[in-house]
């Protein structure tokens, strides 16, 4: 997923964040990289992730 500067500008608009033109390319690169990496993780672990609850910060009843 390669996000464009316009994609980033519109996403940012949804949370009322005004990212200056000079930073749009860097933010697009960073976000695109994260999304691409998550696509790889979904490919590798997606089925297992469906069967696992999201991590809670603490496991109060867990024995280690």
């Amino acid at each position: 997923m390669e996000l464009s500067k316009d994609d980033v500008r519109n996403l940012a608009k949804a949370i009322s964040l005004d990212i200056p033109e000079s930073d749009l390319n860097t933010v697009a690169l960073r976000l695109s990289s994260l999304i691409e990496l998550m696509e790889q993780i979904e490919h590798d672990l997606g089925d297992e992730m469906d069967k696992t609850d999201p991590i809670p910060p603490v496991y109060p009843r867990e024995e280690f």
Partner: protein
Amino acid sequence: MNETDLAYMSIAEQAALIEKKEISPVDLIQIYLDRIEKWDGVLHSWITVCGERALKQAKAAEAEIAKGHYRSPLHGIPFGAKDQITTGDVPTTMASIIQPDFGEGMTATVVSKLEDAGAILLGKNNLHEFGKGSSVNFHFGTPKNPWNLEREPSHSSTGSGISVAAGLVSTSLGEDTGGSIRGPAWANGAVGIRPTFGRVSRYGGIMYAWTQDTIAPITRTVADNALVLQAIAGHDPQDPLSSDRPVPDYATHFTTDLKGVKLGLVREMSVGRELHPDVDRMLKAALDVLKSLGATIEEVSLPKAKYAIPLQFLTSDPEVASIFVRKWLRTHYDKFDVGTRTRLAAAALVPATLYSRAMRGRALVRNEILRAFKSYDALVTLMNFVPPMKLEDSVEKIDNKEDIATRMFKSRRICTYPFSVANVPAISVPSGFTDETVPMSIQIAAKPFDEITMYRVAHAYEQATEWHLRHPDLEKTVGPALDRAAVKMAGE
């Protein structure tokens, strides 16, 4: 005993002298203030030094001890705090220029506990802006590695690592989300831990990665580290996620051998990667020491560990960004460093669906790590596959996609993030030096709330080696830079 020897002593040694009244806390504070004045113009490890406040408290401590009221082995011991940990009347800048003090009068529980034990706040340590490790420019000076000014001092709790390693304070509290304590400990040749999440109160730390942030000490020895953790650990009603499990007496579990201890050497975080020759040599020697102490070592594979870096960026960074967008990013965008603001802006735009999926991924990484602890008492890894990089190479290239991807999978982060997203305790222990005399470290991790085993292995290893006894010769490493600065001033 000269002042340099005193400055580099362990807390245990300093405490013994203070208790016997052979040195005064006032003298100790003054030694550190003098050293900070001499060296920190180059090292940039401090943002605020509260000398008068510290001397006043040292005089009070001296009087208290003289009357026979010796509170603890931390009585009269100076400490620093990463400048994102609140300290009452001493400002908390977050290394930002947005406002002079983010502390709002709060005092972090860890600071209160140290002060209750008699320790004395010496000042606030420099950090990457807001504790995010992506600063390109530093508003309070670029922190420098005291062993070699051309090498990186690592990221985030940087000033804490430098100041302890350079003998500018006895210990410093840092904050570790992904490796922000262990990294600076590694690069500067100190001991740093990430405790189990919930072992230490987060109250009063301005952090916001609420599923992963931890506060803990950087010290010059493992025993000192356990001593400080002992003082700050435990349940805090002001941090609902802090654990009410009892805090064990870590030092009573120290041993000089590791007979019967089974260690797992994590392939993906050590021998499974291409290693720098100096790191390879160091690792082999460290494993030989551990074996000589009686430990058995087997290789273990954690194939999901490689996902830890993107999973952290997709979870803890959005948690931080969710606060920053409302408080400062919308209104003070241009006052952030470009590396910090573009990282936070990208994190702010991660969809909730991806965040939730990444949290599921984190559970899988954690489960894999916890399964390993069914077979091994502790896990051993490197802190990095290469020694500390050249300073200029350690700064993120924010407009280069390949550089971003490299940092996701090939950087030091792959050695620390797996234990961070899994919220298990891990410690960075000095383990050798490169040919250029730059420090290197191994890492020991244990199952949740088993800091006893983590410390025991680290302490036995440390005591069988002499790496913790080496300190940077600042006259040689920093002195020439002072001379250059003096010449420049004279010529101006």
